[in-house]
């Protein structure tokens, strides 16, 4: 009999508190998180226009990450908390 040691890690469990999804976008301020990839700003801009025209969103604001490989940086997160109700994050390539 041979005993093997497991080379993998078990994920640490953590709970993430999500805000309830809004029932409607009517009057909501929409943050658009752009990941710097080519055309990602144009794609998100179009989505923002649709959310305003068809879903009644009040306004959109675009934020640009430092680069596409990292999470949104702290300044963006703080600004989004202050100025947005919902966020759209996406990728364009």
């Amino acid at each position, binding site marked *: *009999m*041979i005993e*093997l*040691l*497991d080379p*993998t890690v078990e994920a640490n469990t953590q709970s993430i508190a999500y805000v309830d999804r809004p029932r409607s976008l009517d009057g909501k301020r929409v943050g658009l998180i752009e990941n710097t990839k*080519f055309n990602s700003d144009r794609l998100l801009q179009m989505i923002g226009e649709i959310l305003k025209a068809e879903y009644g969103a009040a306004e959109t604001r675009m934020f640009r990450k430092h*680069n*596409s490989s*990292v999470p949104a940086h702290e300044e963006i997160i703080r600004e989004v908390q202050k100025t947005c109700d919902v966020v759209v994050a996406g990728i364009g390539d």
Partner: protein
Amino acid sequence: MPVTLTSKRHEVEDPADAIEFCFQRGWTDGLPVIPPTQDRVVRMLEAARLDPKQEIGFIAHRAVSITAEKVAINAVMAGCRPDSMPVVVAAVEGIADLRFSYHGPGTSTAGAGVLMIVNGPIARQLDINAGDNLFGPGWRANLTIGRAVRLVMRNVCGSIPGTLDRGTLGHPGKLSYVIAENEPHSPWTPLHVERGFRPEQSAVTVMAAEAPHQFYNQLSNTAEGILTTLADDMRISGNVMGQPHYALVLAGEHMRTIAGDGWDKQRIRQFVWEHTQNSHAHLKRTQRMAGPAQPGDETTSRPLVASPDDILVVAAGGRAGAFSAYIPGWSSARNSQAVTKEVRR
């Protein structure tokens, strides 16, 4: 004091079953592994004088802690000799460094491997190849150290092909991509000394990288001639628009010719940086740069790398043969940088 290992244990009948069990659990890179038993893992930890609980790295963007115990288990599986463990540990510290920015190169469709360049006395002590057949095969240290790092990426960081490793093509260097600089024969300042270490220190430099591209110059006997060919080969390579890091691997004949003309690494970098620039017109004509043609495009140039310092020059490769290689880094130096870590023993 007995070493306490806390990893989950699995019982199997015999060594052949153990190898099969590791395949079935999805723990391997596609090749058989050495069964990670307690005594082998303990020897690995002892060789690097590490406590199993010690954190070697923390992948911030994945919230994954890489402990010495897990590095040792994967190093055993990769077939490392225990004396290679300090190099594996330094390389893991490198990929966990925020400047390397693990999540991008570890996941990206662009399919980077982790190029590891070993400098200092440990390269000779472990017989890490710096000469003939540089990129393999044939040397245990070169093939097992890189394999260990890749198994850590797979088993600890979750970089499994098809899920969190989404490389479209990948490349053979993703199995192992380890070289040493040929310091005994190099006329130049070693890479780790250029990057802030003393010559007698050992260090490993990690760079998220594409496969090596070999170039030929069997004609010229001058530094300028050889590097002109290199620059012409390299000018359109890698993520042409991204401005990543590059590694230049200059082998025996080219190394001697270039050094014979009195060129040092700084002069090589400067020349290559100046001669690998592309005109905006060419980049637009060849569908690499967006936008309509503008007046002045023919005379406006874009450097392949942002700065000459983003080019790593390494003396390595066989003594004979008028070949050398350039290695494009992944993506962009803004997204991932080469990182050098000391090998501590």
